[in-house]
């Protein structure tokens, strides 16, 4: 089949974008008019065009993060009209297309807002708090030497599916951005779960739960009020049942660890 392009005419959009020089600077919204936006463009292509125009006219391009632009790396992430990753469910910002908007729309674009995610510049935030949570326990110990025989460790289909679901987290931070409390529970619980569900993860099971939760608290994320906005915002649709698993892991570890 031929590539079907949209029959919709190009749009004129009013953009309201958060501009901030660095973490210490106050930051403010700046309005831009964007003409000639094709409904087939991705959201980030639309911002690329805006930036090209700004550069050509001597302006300061808008800083935003992206890498793979195919929804797998977790680098992109903008709060678009009050929703993390914008109006489409189960979709990263890079996979969002302008056909989700209408001619004449005003689009407000903000960075993830959380104390633990300080703004680096404009729409770019520093998510290294996530790295430190992973470092606190998101690893397994493996004996060096010969590779084990394939299928030597039986794993039930049920558990391997749950582990794979948890492992689909791309660490974008939309859960924190969408949570009214700015809690990192969904991210941390996905990382705890993907290992706790598999035999390879059982060695560090207790330290992992305690250390990752402690690191999460230390980073200044909020508490979990079970709003479930995180699951609704997650581009990978990670379930809050992982958060319940993290709680079980933590309580069990707290009661039984040495």
């Amino acid at each position: 089949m031929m590539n079907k392009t949209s029959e919709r005419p190009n749009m004129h959009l009013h953009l309201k974008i958060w501009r901030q020089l660095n973490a210490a600077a106050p930051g403010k919204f700046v309005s831009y008019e964007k003409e000639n936006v094709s409904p087939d463009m991705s959201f980030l292509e639309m911002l690329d065009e805006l930036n090209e125009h700004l550069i050509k006219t001597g302006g300061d391009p808008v800083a935003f993060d992206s890498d793979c632009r195919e929804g797998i790396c977790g680098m992109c992430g903008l709060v678009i009209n009050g929703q993390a990753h914008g109006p489409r469910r189960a979709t990263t910002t890079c996979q969002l297309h302008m056909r989700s908007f209408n001619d004449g729309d005003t689009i407000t674009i903000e960075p993830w807002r959380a104390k633990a995610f300080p703004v680096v510049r404009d729409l770019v935030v520093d998510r290294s708090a996530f790295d430190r949570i992973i470092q606190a326990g998101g690893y397994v110990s493996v004996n060096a030497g010969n590779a084990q025989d394939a299928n030597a460790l039986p794993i039930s289909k049920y558990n391997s599916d749950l582990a794979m679901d948890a492992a689909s987290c791309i660490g974008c931070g939309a859960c924190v951005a969408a949570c009214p409390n700015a809690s990192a529970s969904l991210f941390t619980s996905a990382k705890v779960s993907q290992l706790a569900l598999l035999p390879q993860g059982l060695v560090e099971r207790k330290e992992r739960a305690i250390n990752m939760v402690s690191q999460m608290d230390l980073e200044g994320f909020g508490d979990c009020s079970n709003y479930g906005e995180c699951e609704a915002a997650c581009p990978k649709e990670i379930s809050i049942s992982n958060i319940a698993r993290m709680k079980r892991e933590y309580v069990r570890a707290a009661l039984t660890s040495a």
Partner: protein
Amino acid sequence: MLPFLTAVKSSVGKKFLMAITGLFWVFFLIVHLAGNLALLSGNGDFYNKYSHFLMSLGELLYVMEFLLLAFILTHIFSGVSVALGKMRARPQNYDVQKDLGGKSRKTVSASTMIYSGLLLLIFLVVHISHFKYQVGVDREYFTIINGTRMHDLYQLVYDAFGNLWYMLGYEVIMILVFSHLRHGFWSAFQSLGINHPRWSPVINTLGVVLASVIGFGFLILPLYIHFIGGR
């Protein structure tokens, strides 16, 4: 074992305590409601005998009262801590905010837990000082039950709800009880780590049913007393 204080101060431990204490209070409210159905009998002695029975529990009653007090204080402490933590974790709010819908559980009940909770706290203080310690009651209510002279709680309650404004104020609080438990019940299970493909829908439904039974059960009593009973 992790040191107790470290565990309960963590984000997981805090909500664990909040869930246990909240569920204990839910259990108490069910018992409290069941007992107060005796008010519907329209027979003062019947209700006062129930009250006399509770008094005769002696030490057991004190243990229960102590647990209720200790648990509600723990619950309030952790609830306020969650609410304050929220402001600390997001010092700069979004300019535009839109709920996500879909699988989100962010109902009006969920977003107003701290407000319904704080109003419940004010209510609890007023309610207990009025009916238990009779603060601000200028008349003496006495009756004789099983040979003992005791407070005529039945008459006190009937006189209180005879006042339209008192009755209406009480009803508003009962709607808040419904709201608090509408989110609170299933949320407590999630906080305890209980989330299961088969049982979670059951727990969620049970939460709505219990919130309605408790909220509207306590709502019917004053209406009955004001408009039908004791006339």
